């Protein structure tokens, strides 16, 4: 376990994240121009879609169907468990609870990528079609959480605009679009773009995590504002959701690597698709809560400790 942890902590991507945090703390003028951040996001999302789609094109449906159903079920369950915990234990108001639930039900693509990369390094690669599951996990939770909010209280935002924001949002279009392109053009098509989208991937991810560190560090300042409960929530909830996903993934036939990556996905909290949709639909919700929790607490936790934990668990169950 300790060795697994060290391998993770000393990987270039985790160290780059740490560098970003440190640069922000010493008030360096290092910052990524917004277009670079966007370019890297576009690249990473399209790349995982392409690879996933190409893999999917030669995977029998029988292999995918159970993991897919489990993923969908988790996508609908986890916003509800999150909401209940936030309301009952955290005593949060309905709107903020629903807003946070949308984030924790959805998925962080970067956490997924980091988990996948870690699996490869560990010699426990996940199934190639996992990106298809990411796409499936991204949307339902946001819809469920917005439904909770809209059926339970008056609101100021627009339900339809929020839905459009998430369905036609950049991250879904790139991920699903990449999947379809990869699926249609197959392994043959992927080979043409491999040096760019496959070989360069981990380096681009390293650069992206440097920027994520800069962004997350800005969030850290707000830790005090969000209170102890949310800090605990941002660590315990991922462990619970992630463990459940590892078990269900194993049961659905995924490999050790696959179950662990599914665990990391389910444990992760969205900070691209969900914030945009929530901001549009639930403007009364306080962004400080959901952004600090997902970006300042859960993301760093998963990146450093969570991923090795889900792998250890998956190995223990399935190895």
């Amino acid at each position: 376990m300790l060795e697994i942890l060290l391998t993770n902590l000393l990987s270039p991507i985790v160290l780059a994240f740490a560098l970003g945090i440190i640069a922000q703390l010493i008030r360096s003028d290092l910052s990524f121009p917004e277009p670079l951040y966007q370019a890297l996001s576009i690249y990473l999302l399209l790349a995982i879609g392409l690879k996933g789609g190409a893999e999917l094109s030669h995977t029998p449906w029988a292999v995918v169907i159970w993991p897919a159903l489990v993923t969908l079920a988790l996508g609908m369950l986890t916003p509800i468990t999150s909401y209940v915990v936030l309301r009952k234990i955290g005593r949060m108001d309905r709107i903020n609870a629903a807003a946070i639930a949308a984030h924790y039900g959805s998925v962080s693509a970067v956490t997924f990528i980091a988990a996948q990369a870690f699996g490869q390094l560990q010699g426990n690669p996940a199934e190639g079609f996992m990106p298809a599951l990411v796409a499936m996990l991204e949307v339902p939770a946001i819809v469920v959480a917005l439904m909770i909010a809209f059926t339970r209280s008056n609101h100021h935002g627009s339900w339809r605009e929020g839905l459009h924001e998430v369905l036609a949002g950049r991250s879904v279009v790139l991920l699903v679009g990449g999947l379809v392109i990869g699926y249609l053009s197959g392994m043959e098509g992927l080979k043409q773009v491999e040096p760019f989208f496959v070989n360069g991937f981990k380096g681009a991810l390293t650069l992206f995590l440097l920027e994520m560190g800069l962004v997350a560090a800005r969030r850290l300042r707000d830790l005090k504002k969000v209170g102890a409960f949310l800090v605990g929530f941002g660590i315990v909830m991922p462990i619970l959701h992630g463990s459940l996903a590892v078990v269900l993934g194993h049961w659905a036939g995924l490999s050790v690597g696959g179950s662990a990556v599914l665990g990391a996905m389910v444990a992760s909290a969205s900070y691209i698709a969900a914030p945009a949709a929530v901001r549009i639909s639930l403007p009364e919700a306080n962004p400080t809560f959901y952004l600090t929790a997902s970006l300042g607490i859960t993301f760093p936790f998963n990146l450093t400790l969570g991923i090795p934990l889900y792998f250890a668990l998956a190995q223990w169950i399935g190895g």
Partner: protein
Amino acid sequence: MLTVTLKLVTIVAERVLQERLLRELKELGARGYTLTEVSGEGSRGVRASEWEGHNVKIETIVSPEVADRIIEHIAEHYFQYYAVIVYAQPVEVVRGDKYV
């Protein structure tokens, strides 16, 4: 040169509102706009502007009546929950009929 005095209304808002605001400006009678990507800080702190890029500044030259309508609309629909400010200034333009 014959110039007329119209109003330049400036809105600074979080990026996520861009499309909605542009649509509503058109409905309220604006005939054009100029959009700049900006960043900023205000009474809500920097918080609202870190994802989805930063803020947008939308400038539109309109008649005084339309200016009033826009300001009222923004104040009513956005001030409570969104990071938005709006202000107006008189400007001299040529081809005044282009904007009204």
